[in-house]
């Protein structure tokens, strides 16, 4: 399972419009495997 956390830094008074925002990926982690345990059972 792939897990990623996205960090958004928003201007407090303008996030209503979604403008002036900077978004960056903070962390990407892999828990166990990208494939589920049932993936091999086909």
């Amino acid at each position, binding site marked *: 399972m*792939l897990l990623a956390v996205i960090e958004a830094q928003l*201007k407090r*008074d303008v996030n209503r419009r979604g403008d002036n925002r900077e978004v960056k990926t903070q962390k990407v982690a892999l828990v166990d495997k990208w494939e589920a345990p049932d993936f091999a059972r086909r």
Partner: protein
Amino acid sequence: MDIEVRTEFQKRLHEAVAHEAEAAGSYHRLATAVNLANERMGGRTIERRKLARIGRGDNVPLTYAEIEALDIFLKPKGRGLTTLLERPTILRSFVDQDRVSLFIGAKAYREDDPPHYESTYVSGWDVRSLAFMERAIGAARPGIRFGVEEVFLRSADELARMRDPGVEIAREAWNEIMTDGQTSAIVTIGTQRACHATEVCLATMLGVAPFKRGADPRLSSSPVQFVWSCDEYDRLPSSFAVIGQQREISPSERPRKTIALKVLNKTFEVRAEGDLMYDFGLIAAQRRRTGIWLVIAGLSGRRPTRRRCSWRRSPRMFLGPTRGGLRRCSSR
């Protein structure tokens, strides 16, 4: 001395063939399966020993017919050569999917609406995410079919009356799509506070029961934890929620319902510093037997825009790659 350089494509093909051989039991059985898959497609074949060499990671010469034979076999398993040749990203992995079902949280019309005005409320941010996903996946795989499912949010009273929310919510029409074993890909948009499908999807991916509070409301062993206020924790049962304390906030700010996100014990706290708000979102993805499952969940649940949408409570609606229900939404 010869130095063998293995390309990314070679590594991915080796990994895919080795995985399929393990699933089949042997390279002999895998070769039989590949040849069987190609029987109705022109009868291309690939030989067992060549598959075994690919599985070992050897540099193997392949004919065009063998490449096609491998593609025909691997494509339904989500590992066609298009996927293996491209730089792997979550969205690129959708190219081998036939259908994508997108789940968004929704609310039925409010009590103060006129009786004849039956409408469905969805978050503007969720609609933006939906439009982005439709565009991005449609670009990666033109012609892919999209289905949009509204997941109606149960109120705190309704949830409190349920003996087992996991069982009762699982009876809803949208949940059948997740469990019918036919849908290629599933995308849920919105935190479990807004979209029950996110709770079910995350629980299935992590192999736990949904809507089950832990024994200790402040501790959880889950790799994904949502730190909620006490009120929110009491309102909505979730297998991924824990109670947290938020830092002191100024009188002008309203208390937050979601305080932080914990992923693998690292804490990401929703907070204000100066004129900046720091907010977070979670992306969880898994390749499953029936296709890719993807959860996109924001934390704070701010709803600065609300769109009134004319979708009726139809159980299913499939949209084309470029035209569809999204066009029918309008800002209020």
